[in-house]
């Protein structure tokens, strides 16, 4: 997938990975679809950005004798995710248009 297109989807996917409850770095990398090519270098800045925007919150908790950071959605984050889903029609319309254009 194109890097520019990926960026918008990545935000949504990372937010979605916390929709059912808090998650942590490695879990998020595993959860996000492979097609987006998520790695630590992509995730770390992205989480920072989402946190700065107030879409997620972070807490530290002990796990296996070490500290692990857990991320969870804020109400605003959940709202952003809903808005993203609302654009499903528009995205589909764009894809349909491109597909049709190619078929012709």
């Amino acid at each position: 997938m194109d890097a520019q297109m990926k960026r918008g989807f990545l935000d949504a996917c990372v937010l979605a990975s916390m929709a059912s409850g808090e998650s942590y770095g490695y879990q998020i990398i595993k959860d996000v679809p492979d097609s987006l090519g998520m790695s630590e270098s992509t995730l770390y800045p992205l989480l920072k950005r989402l946190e700065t925007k107030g879409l997620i919150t972070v807490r530290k908790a002990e796990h296996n004798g070490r500290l692990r950071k857990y991320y969870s959605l804020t109400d605003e984050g959940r709202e952003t995710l809903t808005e993203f889903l609302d654009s499903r029609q528009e995205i589909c319309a764009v894809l349909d248009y491109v597909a049709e254009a190619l078929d012709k």
Partner: protein
Amino acid sequence: MNIREYEAQLTKLLGELPSKEREEAVSFYIETLADRIDDGASEADAVASLPTPEEAAQAILNDRPTDEQKDFDLTVRKGGGTCDDDEAGPDRERFIDRLRQRRLSVLEWVAVIVTSPLWLSILAVILALVVVLLAVYVVIWVLIACVWIIGAALVAAAPMALLFVIWGLQLGYFPYALVNVGYGLFGFGAGMWVMRGALKLTRAFLSWQKRNIKVRMRRHRDAPDDEKLFGDEDEDKSSSVETTSAPPSKCCGFFRVCTGLVIAGVACVAIGFLASGMDWRVFLTSLYTEGNMYIGGVQVDDPSALLFAPVYLGR
């Protein structure tokens, strides 16, 4: 590469970041490494599956928000109502970090120095020094004034002693008169000598003061009207010449006269004392004790008969 090496290399590559930001980023990578190992991967595999330290560092450094971006983020946060108290934190931290690494811009260095609280204490020290210097200056003048007063008092004793001499002669008590002649001579000789000393001290201090101020002023401005400002320089020079080179004979003559007066005074006192039959009361003059006047221990029957005595006693 093992975890420690990965951590060390990433930390080193993020050297330009503030320490807190750097630690946060490194701990994120180490956390996912540990999670991969917990998930069953070997340490080497876990490290290999991560971006290289160079890639990680580049991604972190590239993504640091610019100032504009930061401002935007802040407004978003404020709008969202989740604003924290430590918004100024990262900026300050970054600044302190750069300060520690001595990597500030010239303007920042100037600001750091100018706004340093050190200036307050330096100002206090300067103020204290000025006060101390002023106090020392005043004390020097007071000491010089004391020398003048001592000299003047000694000289002023001479006419007083002369009056007592006249009273002694009027009463026919000659040893007392002689002792007072001695007092007068001693007082005048010693007083003149002390006052001469006071004059020299005053001149010396004045010229020292003038010289020092002049040197300071010259250092600051080499304008020719310095001469006008301190036009009395020549006068000063001539006076200093007078006091240092010319007067030896004059000074020695003066000194000899004074010493002569003092010795003569002491001799007169000694002779008067012997003439009185070594009566220590010869030294005393009691002008008003319980309504009576005693001169050299002898009560005066009619004080009003003495020269100026009624005026002196206020009658």
